[in-house]
């Protein structure tokens, strides 16, 4: 009897402790779950960040670079190789204001053309463009024959020193004519979309210097990477 009293009270107090301990463990587990949930939410939020401002800056800058009225293009989507070489970061920022206060790099076929800062963490945008390079080709032509230019060009310069020529035809159309004979040098704009044959009038004598600027284009990948 005397022994049984404490023995009986023991299980009841043990039970009380067990309940409390279980509750505390449950609350700790719940707290841990909430903590893990918050961590997952944080991760989801961080993963959803697509840096829209950087992306927009990269896309807009690439669009401005290859626009028809850009200082580094010959026409839309055709970049001018020599103008690209002289492009400075300041001129690019004037052309594409979103690049102000940002680190950026413009690459053509992986080769850096303009660079400012270190945009490693930024967003890059790639697109296909053409790069054209034009160089002058000069040939001397006998005025009693005709010449077909091997590559297409958009303008031809003719020098008539040491020649007696009244009329110049491009693909049969008269582009220059002077009854007393042409003098000095003349530049003729021609179509780039057809192969050009230059001929002279039947009585022409001497030699004419013909200078054309054929354009060579190659496909490249234009990449703009921006980190604001």
């Amino acid at each position: 009897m005397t022994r049984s009293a404490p023995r009986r009270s023991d299980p009841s107090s043990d039970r009380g402790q067990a309940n409390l301990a279980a509750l505390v463990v449950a609350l700790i587990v719940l707290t841990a779950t909430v903590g893990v949930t918050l961590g997952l939410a944080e991760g989801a939020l961080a993963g959803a960040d697509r840096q829209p401002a950087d992306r927009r800056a990269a896309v807009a800058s690439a669009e401005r670079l290859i626009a028809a009225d850009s200082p580094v293009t010959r026409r839309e989507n055709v970049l001018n190789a020599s103008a690209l070489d002289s492009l400075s970061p300041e001129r690019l920022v004037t052309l594409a204001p979103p690049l102000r206060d940002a680190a950026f790099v413009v690459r053509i076929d992986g080769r850096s053309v303009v660079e400012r800062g270190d945009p490693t963490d930024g967003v890059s945008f790639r697109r296909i463009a053409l790069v054209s390079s034009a160089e002058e080709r000069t040939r001397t032509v006998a005025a009693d024959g005709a010449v077909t230019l091997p590559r297409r060009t958009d303008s031809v310069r003719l020098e008539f020193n040491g020649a007696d020529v009244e009329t110049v035809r491009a693909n049969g159309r008269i582009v220059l004519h002077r009854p007393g004979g042409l003098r000095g040098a003349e530049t003729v704009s021609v179509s780039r979309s057809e192969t050009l044959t230059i001929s002279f009038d039947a009585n022409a004598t001497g030699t004419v210097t013909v200078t054309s600027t054929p354009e060579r284009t190659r496909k490249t990948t234009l990449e703009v990477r921006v980190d604001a």
Partner: protein
Amino acid sequence: MTGRPRVDASTRRRRVDASARDGDVRDRAVTPIVSKTLEIGLVVLFVGGLSTALFAGAVPDYRDAAADRVADRSLAGAATEIENAVPPRAASVRVERSVDLPATIRGSGYRIVAVDGRVRLDHPNPSVDGSLRLALPERVASVSGTWRSGAETVIAVAGEDGRLSIRLVSR
């Protein structure tokens, strides 16, 4: 707390058996009440503390962060739409183009304002804002106007070549 019944029982055990038993019985009757009260108190404290931590700290922070992301995207989208609305060269142009914007960000309306070649997002919540520079051709002379979210938002481009004006109109 749980030690008390045992201490009482050991001190009174030898003197009066009956009273010891009585005390034991009383203590045993009290123990569940104490333990339940403790449990209820703990749970109430826990729920209160967790609610405070979540709804006064974490949740508003996340709402602000998410709203800022949405604002950034909306602004970037609006700027892209404005840039794409510029028509090719022509002697005289008149273009209208409607733009979709989220009606509300973080539960309230906002405005997109175009000033000095930039677009700015104005929101009543100070943690949500943004400003972007526009990349426009030289032939665009001015960008102005305001978009109110929820209204019908339209870009109106008009003018002669070389002096285009872009207006953000909400109807």
